[in-house]
């Protein structure tokens, strides 16, 4: 399974003139950016500006109406059907399986991905769910579910970490866990956060503002 290619600084994500329309109405138009390993980017914009839509397009869960999006691993373009191997994803509209325990959810995902079970306990400890790993998801609180989503996103050590409002429903400890993960991943991988939250934005060095459709590097 995919994992550590970004550690050598070899991942590049390139978007050229991305446009997405729903019912012929453009959500955003001509968004372009290039991101490489070791970067962190906040996607910002008003409600309805297309932050989540752009995250979905980057993660290959949705197609763009026009434009080109390419992921390169060591300068070699990754085939569309293999993009999922590089992606870690957290989002409010992603749900895990309520009828299984936290541990079982991650075990099922590891089995489907064809990776071993060795990292499951580590990520559960990292997100603070290890003591509750044998509880069914249906009795988890919304904050615990959010923590499990974060565990799901980093289970396979992805090269591109996409976080859509990652700290929603989290307490202070949970927010601190997200901070640590983002700080670690932005060292040698690509981190993208869709948010309007000031704290989440502060974790990122770059910003793509969908209102202004500009990509800029923040003042340091």
């Amino acid at each position: 399974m995919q994992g550590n290619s970004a550690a050598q600084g070899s991942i590049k994500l390139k978007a050229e003139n991305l446009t997405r329309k729903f019912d012929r109405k453009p959500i955003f138009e001509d968004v372009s950016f290039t991101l490489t390993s070791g970067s962190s980017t906040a996607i910002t914009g008003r409600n309805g500006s297309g932050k989540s839509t752009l995250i979905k397009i980057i993660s290959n869960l949705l197609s763009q109406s026009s434009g080109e999006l390419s992921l390169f691993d060591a300068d070699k373009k990754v085939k569309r059907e293999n993009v999922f191997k590089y992606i870690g994803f957290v989002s409010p509209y992603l749900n895990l399986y309520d009828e299984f325990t936290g541990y079982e959810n991650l075990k099922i995902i590891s089995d489907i991905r064809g990776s071993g079970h060795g990292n499951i306990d580590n990520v559960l400890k990292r997100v603070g769910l290890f003591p509750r790993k044998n509880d069914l998801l249906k009795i988890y609180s919304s904050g615990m579910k959010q923590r499990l989503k974060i565990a799901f996103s980093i289970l396979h050590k992805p090269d591109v970490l996409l976080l859509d409002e990652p700290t929603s429903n989290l307490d202070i400890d949970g927010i601190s866990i997200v901070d640590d993960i983002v700080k670690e991943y932005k060292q040698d991988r690509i981190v993208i956060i869709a948010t309007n939250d000031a704290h989440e934005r502060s974790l990122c060095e770059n910003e793509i503002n969908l209102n202004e459709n500009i990509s800029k590097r923040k003042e340091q």
Partner: protein
Amino acid sequence: MFKQALAICRKDFNSEIRTRYAVNALLMFIIVVISVIKFSLGEDKLSSELNGGLLWIIIFFATSNGLSRVFVAEEERGTSLVLKLSASAQSVFLGKLIFNTLLTFIINLLIIILYILITGLDIKSPGLFSLVIGLGNFGLSSVMTIIAALISKASSKGTLYPVLSFPLLLPLLLASISATWLTIEGAGFGAIAGEIQMMVSYTIVVITASFLLFELVWND
């Protein structure tokens, strides 16, 4: 791909055991239909043609009730993203196809046993009868699986499923009904070779087309 598919199939089985999304509806349907047939027939005996037709009517509507759940449940609960981010589209389709085929075999075994017990049906070529039912089941689950994927994103799923699947299944159903009543009457392989050929080629075409089309259905 096969390993991933088996993991998805195993997940669906464990999920079904815990939630009984499909099994409860199917069992209720089978019990009600078989009971209605028993009360309608009394002590009368049906001809082989009618038995073949009736058996496949029950099988068709029973599978219409249950097989769509594999994709509909994932969409309704928001868990389809987990699969999209963890496995290739082909693995997902193969996993769901294996699950639906196994479920269809179990359901239809139950239907046939109950049907034989209640109507006293005497099958003169049981080996060929089993072959016809097996091939018919496989064809049925192949069509039902791809249609389940198609309708899972629609708003009126319940209506669409039988409406879409019936015209597609008509050639298979006609061949299955004809071969079934011939085997009930004791026909040899030569007499049903045409139907067998038709069922096998139909299933191969459906599965090939499904693998080619599924990625489009699944990803957007």
